[in-house]
């Protein structure tokens, strides 16, 4: 089965989707603590939606954002307010909330017309601080820093009340996000975004409207973050400013770096890798780590993430997805490989 592009082999996609939806049943059969693993996977699913959008902005377009936890927060609070206080259905909120966050993204895109790199990163980080202050100030709707209780998702009368139910909702949305992200990446828009990243002057010379596409990149990225935020609020049942710390924005950047920038599948792999490392690997090994180094799991986590990012940037800039591609090429050419290192 070939995709729209000659190099795309999509045979494995239906199998993967079936696998994704069979996974909860397999987990339930294997372990009594499957609900815990489903919770971790659900979180990864929500973050995948966000990092796909972030990859389109930072990976494809080269515009760094340290404000994506704020976009997530706006999506979460908007949806919580729309559903629980305004009374609109959750399914409608899944459309409106991303659009509102997209508009915020569009507005944040303005500075990106003049600044790039570290300065843009700092500007988006500042946006994160402003959003946090706004949430606290708008306490009539947000309940301030005390946090907001949120109702569970209800679609056509069905209430998604448990991690089990949430898994199917979140991963359906995540699959849609990945497909849409891939399509955007391979479309005219995606090519324009990559052209801007590689050389703004060259892109402009070939007819790419810089301002339009840069702001479009922020808008699209906001849409994905808003979608993730709406799901986050209703599946978590409680949101507060502590959920959307600036450090989360940095983790999102690490996720796409580890997965491999400019690759939607890379964003998926990187997010899974970091979330599983953070929520399964570190807690499991924290006692061992504490015993050997006399430091807490959380401290080693920051150290580990820093080290992983450092190693990937130096030795594997194409990330996990790049590694996978190289391995595929290696086996395709085997045994006639050029004398090069595998990884």
């Amino acid at each position, binding site marked *: 089965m070939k995709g729209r592009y000659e190099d795309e082999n999509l045979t494995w996609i239906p199998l993967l989707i079936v696998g994704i939806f069979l996974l909860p049943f397999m987990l339930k059969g294997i372990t*009594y*603590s*499957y*609900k*815990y693993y489903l*919770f*971790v996977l659900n*979180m990864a699913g929500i973050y995948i939606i966000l990092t796909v959008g972030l990859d389109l902005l930072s990976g494809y377009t080269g515009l760094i954002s340290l404000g994506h936890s704020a976009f997530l927060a706006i999506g979460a609070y908007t949806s919580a307010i729309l559903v629980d206080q305004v009374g609109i259905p959750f399914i409608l909120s899944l459309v409106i909330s991303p659009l509102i966050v997209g508009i915020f993204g569009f507005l944040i895109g303005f500075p990106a017309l003049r600044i790039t790199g570290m300065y843009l990163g700092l500007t988006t980080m500042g946006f994160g601080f402003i959003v946090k202050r706004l949430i*606290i100030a708008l*306490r009539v709707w947000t*309940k*301030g*820093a*005390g*946090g907001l*209780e949120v109702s569970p998702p209800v679609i056509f009368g069905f209430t998604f009340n*448990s991690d089990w139910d949430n898994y199917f909702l979140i991963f359906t949305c995540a699959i849609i996000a990945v497909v849409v992200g891939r399509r955007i990446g391979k479309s005219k828009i995606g090519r324009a975004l990559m052209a801007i990243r590689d050389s703004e002057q060259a892109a402009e010379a070939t007819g790419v409207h810089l301002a339009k596409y840069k702001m479009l990149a922020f808008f699209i990225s906001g849409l994905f973050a808003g979608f993730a935020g709406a799901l986050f609020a209703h599946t*978590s*049942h*409680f949101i*507060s*400013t*502590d*959920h959307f*710390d600036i450090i989360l924005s940095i983790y999102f950047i690490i996720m796409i770096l580890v997965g491999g920038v400019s690759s939607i599948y890379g964003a998926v792999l990187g997010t899974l890798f970091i979330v599983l490392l953070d*929520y399964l690997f570190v*807690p499991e090994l*924290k006692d061992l780590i504490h015993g050997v180094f006399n430091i*807490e*799991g*959380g*401290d080693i*986590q*920051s150290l580990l993430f820093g080290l992983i990012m450092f190693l990937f940037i130096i030795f594997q800039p194409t990330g996990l997805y790049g590694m996978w591609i190289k391995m595929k090429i290696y086996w395709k050419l085997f045994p006639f490989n050029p004398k090069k290192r595998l990884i």
Partner: protein
Amino acid sequence: MKKATGLFILTGLLVMGCGNRASAPGVSEDKILIGNVQDLSGPMKELGAVLPAGSNLYFRYVNENGGVHGRQIEMKVEDHQYNPQKAVAAAKKLIEKDQVFCLYQVIGTSPCEAIRPILAESGTPLVAPATQSGSMSDMSREAADLIFHTDTGYDKQTRILVDNILADNVNAKIGLIYQDDDYGENVLKGAAVAESSTGVAIQKEAYQRGATDFAGQVANLMKGGATHVIIAGVVKEPIIVMKTAAAMGYAPKFYGTSPTMDHRVSLAAGPAGEGFTSANFASLWNSDAVAAVLYRELCSKYEVPEAYMGMYHFYGFITAQVLVEGLERAGQYPTRERLVNGLETLNNWDGGAFPPITYSQTDHAGTESVILVEVKEGVQTVITDWID
């Protein structure tokens, strides 16, 4: 017929016996496993290490004296880094994977709020959440029937402080410096209640968690003419605020909520902290209260490092007393439901540190009073009895 009746009665008794021995997660023949979620590597990690250490001191004492109904208490601690999402993950792990009997002493308001759905879903009680937010004993909230609060809420503390200030000086102009997070939100709630009940307007100045510069807030209070200032901070905030005020030549009477009661405040603030009065929901660790005497004895017996000893370590110790009392009352064959029922039988229970604790099916606040502690010549001195 007699045989059949006898057999019927015997079967009935056996069934009843089995029912009584219904097993619960985390309970084995010789052990009860409880779960604790602390901030071990986040902004409150200093407390995260000390609180469970205080609890373990009491558990060790109980275990060496035969445990609870012959079972040893074991506590598993997870880290949430003061992140509510991590708190949810940690609570899920403890309940689903480690199969703990109950949760105990989860630190922080937003982490405790975030885990409410898990408590409700699994029916797991949370005993003595380590936050003084009044929302913990709000019985209209989700899983409120499973949460047993031991501390007087920040809202009530603030209201008591305002009442006390006005009782001393009816013309007092009151200022409030609060942290703009969940903690401060609950303090503001108490301030609003006090404002409406007394008719006095309180000048409010916010600061961000982790702030180290309070010159702006102090200058505003000075400009507003506040004669009495309540500091709703933790340890470093009251120290810096009082030192800043002293440096600016501004000398209102300072008050603080319970987290500011740490003895390091008076030590570090020096002369600027003289007269600082804080509210506390338990007796002092170095007082003559029964629990405090036992605490110091055990610290000495088990050679607890001096750096650990103090308000927060003692807090871990006394909340462990409440949990153990609940476990005792849950009976020989404890279940989560029996723990809830057992705790709800506490009626003016005096553990020797908290004011008498009362729980019922409709009230899980435990206590609603505080003592006031004033720094006199550098020494913390209790100046009131329990007031509410």
